């Protein structure tokens, strides 16, 4: 699946992903995890990945397992979520910065491993899910 770095494209992609998962025999629990991880990471790319206003393409690929692997590629700033410090797993309502770290916290909680590579100006993130 390919989408542009626009909020409205994320909405359409979420619907497409949900429809795809419904057509497969993916368990509800795994389906939830895949949708959540996809949404959190693509949201971060759209929000923080680019300084310019240009259209950029984000690519996502799902290989249903076991193990199920989600791969996301983007040409935004180099960003390796595997080396980001783990946010505390609580958050204070008034702390916007902590809320920002919430998405990555959820991604870690829903996956068994993450592998990052930066090649040819692309971020490539591979996420493995528990079955």
């Amino acid at each position, binding site marked *: 699946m390919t989408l542009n770095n626009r*909020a409205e494209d*994320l*909405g359409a992609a*979420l*619907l497409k992903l*949900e429809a795809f998962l419904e057509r497969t025999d993916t368990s*509800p*629990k795994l389906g*939830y995890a895949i*949708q*959540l991880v996809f*949404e*959190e990471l693509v*949201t971060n790319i759209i929000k923080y990945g680019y300084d310019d206003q240009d259209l950029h393409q984000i690519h996502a690929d799902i290989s249903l397992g076991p193990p199920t692997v989600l791969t996301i590629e983007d040409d935004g700033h180099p960003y390796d979520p595997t080396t980001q410090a783990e946010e505390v*797993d*609580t*958050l204070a*309502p*008034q702390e916007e910065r902590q*809320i920002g770290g*919430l*998405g990555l*916290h*959820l991604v870690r*909680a829903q996956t068994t491993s993450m592998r990052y590579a930066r090649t040819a100006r692309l971020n490539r993130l591979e996420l493995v899910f528990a079955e």
Partner: protein
Amino acid sequence: MNIEITQQADISIVTVTGKLDALTAPEYERRLGRLIEEGAQRIVVDFGPLVYVSSAGLRALLNTTKPLQARGGRIVYANLQEPVREVFEMTALLTLFRVHDSLADALADV
């Protein structure tokens, strides 16, 4: 996502069906924001038919809880289904919000 708001005496009951995600969170914030601006002081959010929440949805809950509490109001969440409850647990939101297993308990606590 579908939002239905009903009144039971001075309590507003907000039933949220479907998914609370990046796509629908702005609409949730708008509807709850309007309800609070109109003077609602006691709100119960029934998440029984809610099947999905992401951090965008959690952010919407935080953004609507703050202005209500600033006005001295109360909001209680009820009926979290298992996958939604798990996301709340992962983020420790269960300790920040008032959450009840049943609508009746939520109505008694709001």
